[in-house]
């Protein structure tokens, strides 16, 4: 096969995963709407849909890893595709989170008379931004330093150090999520407490969700580094995870400054 190929492009084999992912997404959406409207069987359909999507993600990425490592299809020119694709994905994520922060600014810059004409709204107690919120900004930034350490270790060919650096990255990420959970548990307001609660928990919650995705991405990279999948010359998956992780830790600065700090005084 490979010997007869006279170009550096990857012509993919037919795959069942796009259609299975689409069916999983359909079941998740319909099940989710049914669940939220308390229809019978909604929770079951939602769970089945999510399991289907998770299964599809697993087997699809398994195929991509085999094409990359075992079959060697990811040539220099093929690597450009996922790189540009991932950059565009992160750009779309920036726009998504910008909309959530903008919703908070829109509500807080000129607070309406219904919430007392002040921000935070009358009766809403807020957290001290110098306590957990500041710590939980420093933790992702330190984790970002750790992923940069991992990147340079990979480029220097220090395989073991790269695994240690990724363990540090993931550990800091888990500590962040633990503190964020503690903060939510102790918070004086909830998502159903005025526009403050809606915008605060929507923005910080979606940021936290992105931290969890980035954590899983870094764990996968750590395992792949340990297994020797990543080389000095070829580690697109790790690069994507590092870009994503920097995006997540830089984005944390915006809710910290505008929602916790400015919005809390």
């Amino acid at each position, binding site marked *: 096969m490979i010997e007869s190929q006279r170009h550096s492009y990857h012509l993919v084999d037919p795959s069942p995963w796009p259609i299975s992912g689409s069916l999983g997404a359909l079941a998740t959406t319909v099940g989710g709407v049914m669940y939220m409207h308390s229809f019978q069987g909604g929770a079951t359909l939602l769970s089945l849909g999510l399991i289907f999507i998770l299964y599809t993600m697993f087997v699809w990425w398994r195929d991509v890893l085999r094409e990359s490592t075992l079959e060697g299809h990811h040539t220099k020119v093929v690597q450009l595709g996922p*790189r540009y694709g991932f950059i565009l994905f992160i750009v779309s994520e920036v726009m998504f989170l910008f909309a959530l922060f903008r919703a908070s600014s829109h509500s807080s810059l000129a607070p309406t008379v219904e919430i007392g004409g002040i921000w935070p709204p009358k009766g809403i*107690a807020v957290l001290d931004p110098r306590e957990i919120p500041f*710590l939980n900004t*420093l*933790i992702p930034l330190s984790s970002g*330093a750790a992923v940069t350490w991992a990147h340079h270790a990979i480029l220097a060919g220090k395989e073991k150090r790269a695994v240690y*650096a990724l363990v540090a990255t993931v550990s800091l990420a888990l500590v962040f999520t633990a503190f964020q959970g503690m903060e939510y548990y102790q918070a*004086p307001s909830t998502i159903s407490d005025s526009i403050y609660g809606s915008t605060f928990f929507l923005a910080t919650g979606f940021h936290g969700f992105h931290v969890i995705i980035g954590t899983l991405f870094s764990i996968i990279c750590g395992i792949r580094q340990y297994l020797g999948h990543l080389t*000095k010359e070829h580690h697109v998956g790790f690069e994507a995870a590092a870009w994503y992780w920097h995006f997540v830790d830089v984005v944390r600065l915006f809710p910290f400054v505008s929602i916790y700090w400015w919005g809390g005084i």
Partner: protein
Amino acid sequence: MASAILRSSLRTALRGGSRPNPASKRSFSSGASAEEEAREAAKWEKITYAGIAGCTILAVVNLSKGHPHFDEPPPYPYLHIRNKEFPWGPDGLFEVKEHH
């Protein structure tokens, strides 16, 4: 397989030895040497340790303060909004609070 390797090495030799191929350079990279990368790795390792030390101190300080207590606000209409019951019951996910 063996003949393919022989053929490709013969081709390389005919082309004038192992000339650096511009396509083999990693795209999107600065192309630093291994020594430079090792130095950078050591620098970022130190920054990571400094970050972990700072975070640990701040975490100990914050956790030793204990958790904050807030007074119950007056029942303004925009607080604790309920238009219909959640699928899982009457309380929100983070609403179960300790009262003490």
